[in-house]
């Protein structure tokens, strides 16, 4: 077996004591920056690049990769504890994770996301080591029409992110699309809705919008109560998920992992789409969809597994094609270049030790992360016993620093406060923030892929139906769009027929 000898060889490299130390270092740094919003993985990797100049390339990549997937473990922590999504892929985790924390179930929420991430990571690495080249050619086949249909399908799923009114969820999706158009249009370079402010030409940054809509607005809402002391139930029953929890969500973890693995291969929005598509799938197959958004553990397990699996599979385009799929992977690309390795289609043949060493180190790194994160849960949960006004000040400070650090500008801090106020009124009116944020991020990709498809086809809309993958995705989207209507008609029929 070629694969086993390669992997065995990889493990012998990854188990080298220095490489083990660097994997552990990466895991620790990654967890820390995942927890601290404001310093995302790309910036951290950029900061650490000079340190890797003198390191062995395999050790360097092992450490940087550890930071990347370690941050995915840590990223869910602030979503669950403070309702601040550290990155776009953990927006969905806020929906049920934060609710669970307020019900005194922060421990199980953190536990399931750590264990789910571990399982997902392992499944995804296994997939990576087995079918990386095949999957890479699949990612290449994914052209503009396929992207368009996938993202359209993803945005349809946004319906499932609203707990009460579907219409309100859709309106927020529309608002997100609108906010996503702010900046420079991709075809002609026209500036849209910038009101003469050159700071708006880049559009809105995710961190600025998310920290405002989630973090700041949460504090504002809690201030309405005359005495804000404890908003978390402090009778913390258990620190880890129960057997009942596991029975409910093991299938969610597996489904999330698979979705994350496949969708995560796609450069661009892969991790984000997989996180909320997996949430939507869980809500749809669940026997009790009404519990979603109110603290359903599947709503944490599925997206957390998905985004972790996606973070692993997003290495595939880099390692097999030499194309960085997201900002962090782009920094790892630079790290490879520094060591004289040009990532490209020949990487696995030319540097097998690097490839298999890094892959094997991911198995080990995931195990380390599990060992690191499970004991931390007790600490995080105890943190929630701090009186809420102190916690609120911490939330406000973190949001301010996070927004400032995006572009080192006070303008962004101001924008974040404005989004905080908007989020506050949205909450009061029952308008869900998650569809807004997701369509704001995906809208520009949708627009670009639409333009790419139409310009390529010379304005022929049939391009979306002629390509099999695109056509299949569109039919699923149409099915999803139509079923709620049929369901309603069915219900009405049933009501009038029954006595």
């Amino acid at each position, binding site marked *: 077996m070629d694969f086993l000898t390669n992997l065995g060889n990889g493990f012998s490299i990854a188990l080298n004591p220095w490489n083990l130390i660097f994997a552990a270092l990466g895991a620790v740094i990654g967890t820390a920056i995942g927890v601290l919003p404001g310093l995302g993985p790309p910036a951290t990797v950029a900061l650490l690049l000079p340190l890797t100049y003198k390191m062995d390339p395999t050790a360097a990549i092992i450490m940087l990769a550890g930071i990347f997937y370690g941050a995915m473990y840590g990223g869910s922590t602030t979503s669950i504890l403070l309702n601040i999504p550290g990155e776009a892929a953990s927006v969905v985790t806020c929906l049920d994770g934060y609710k669970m924390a307020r019900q005194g179930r922060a421990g199980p929420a953190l536990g399931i996301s750590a264990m789910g991430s571990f399982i997902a990571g392992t499944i995804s690495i296994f997939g990576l080591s087995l079918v990386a080249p095949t999957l890479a050619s699949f990612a290449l086949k994914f052209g503009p029409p396929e992207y368009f249909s996938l993202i359209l399908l993803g945005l349809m799923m946004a319906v499932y992110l609203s707990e009460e009114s579907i219409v309100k969820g859709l*309106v927020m999706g529309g608002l997100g699309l609108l906010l996503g158009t702010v900046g420079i249009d991709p075809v002609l370079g026209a500036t849209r809705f910038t009101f003469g402010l050159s700071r708006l030409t880049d559009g809105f940054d995710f961190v600025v919008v998310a920290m405002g809509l989630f973090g700041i607005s949460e504090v504002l809402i809690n201030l309405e109560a005359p005495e804000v002391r404890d908003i978390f139930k402090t009778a913390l029953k258990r620190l880890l998920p129960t057997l009942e929890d596991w029975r409910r969500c093991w299938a969610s973890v597996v489904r999330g992992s698979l979705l994350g693995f496949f969708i995560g291969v796609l450069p661009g929005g892969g991790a984000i789409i997989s996180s909320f598509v997996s949430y939507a799938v869980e809500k749809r197959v669940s026997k009790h969809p009404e519990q979603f958004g109110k603290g359903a553990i599947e709503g944490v397990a599925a997206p957390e597994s998905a985004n972790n699996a996606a973070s692993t599979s997003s290495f595939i385009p880099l390692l097999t094609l030499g194309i960085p799929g997201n900002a962090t992977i782009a920094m790892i690309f630079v790290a490879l270049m520094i060591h004289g390795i040009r990532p490209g289609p020949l990487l696995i043949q030319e540097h097998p030790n690097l490839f298999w060493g890094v892959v094997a180190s991911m198995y080990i790194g995931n195990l380390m992360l599990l060992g690191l994160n499970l004991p931390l849960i007790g600490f995080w949960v105890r943190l929630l016993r701090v009186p809420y006004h102190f916690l609120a000040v911490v939330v406000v400070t973190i949001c301010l620093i996070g927004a400032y650090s995006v572009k080192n500008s006070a303008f962004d801090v101001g924008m974040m406060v404005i989004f905080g106020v908007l989020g506050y009124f949205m909450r009061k009116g029952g308008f869900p923030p998650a569809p807004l944020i997701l369509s704001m991020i995906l809208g520009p990709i949708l627009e670009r892929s639409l333009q790419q498809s139409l310009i390529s086809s010379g304005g022929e809309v049939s391009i979306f139906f002629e390509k099999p993958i695109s056509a299949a995705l569109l039919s699923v989207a149409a099915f999803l769009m139509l079923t709620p209507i049929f369901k309603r008609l069915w219900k009405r029929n049933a009501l009038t027929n029954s006595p």
Partner: protein
Amino acid sequence: MKNLTDILGSLFLILLGIGAIIGAIGLRVGTPTEPQPGFFPFLSGAIIVILSSIIFVQGWLGRSKRRIGLGEIKRPAMLIAVLAAFVAVLEPLGYVLASPFLIAVVLRIMGIKSWRALLVTSLVLSIGTYLLFDWLLGITLPAGILTRFGL
């Protein structure tokens, strides 16, 4: 029973959507097969207007389930004002000088009355976050007027 929050919210959104449509027409909308820069803004504006109208009608007829009053608005408004002030002074004053005031005022709004608690928390938190982010993590926080003293 009319639902006031839904009516007000949907009216705001309808106006916003109309604004987007007007802006989109200024950018040129194009056709679905040959979209121009205004196409997406137009589409999103239209989605917002149509769906908000549904919310408006439902709110007017009192059909929607959710009913919440405006609630206690004073404290949130105070926090918003404080945050706005913080944004204004952040770059001229610098993070180390501006943040203790912000933190103290926020704690005061939250109902902390003990001056010692205010002083200790605000100083510890602002200096602590400065050291953590600026020194340890290398995020440049605005130094403001402290730069004049060569800090």
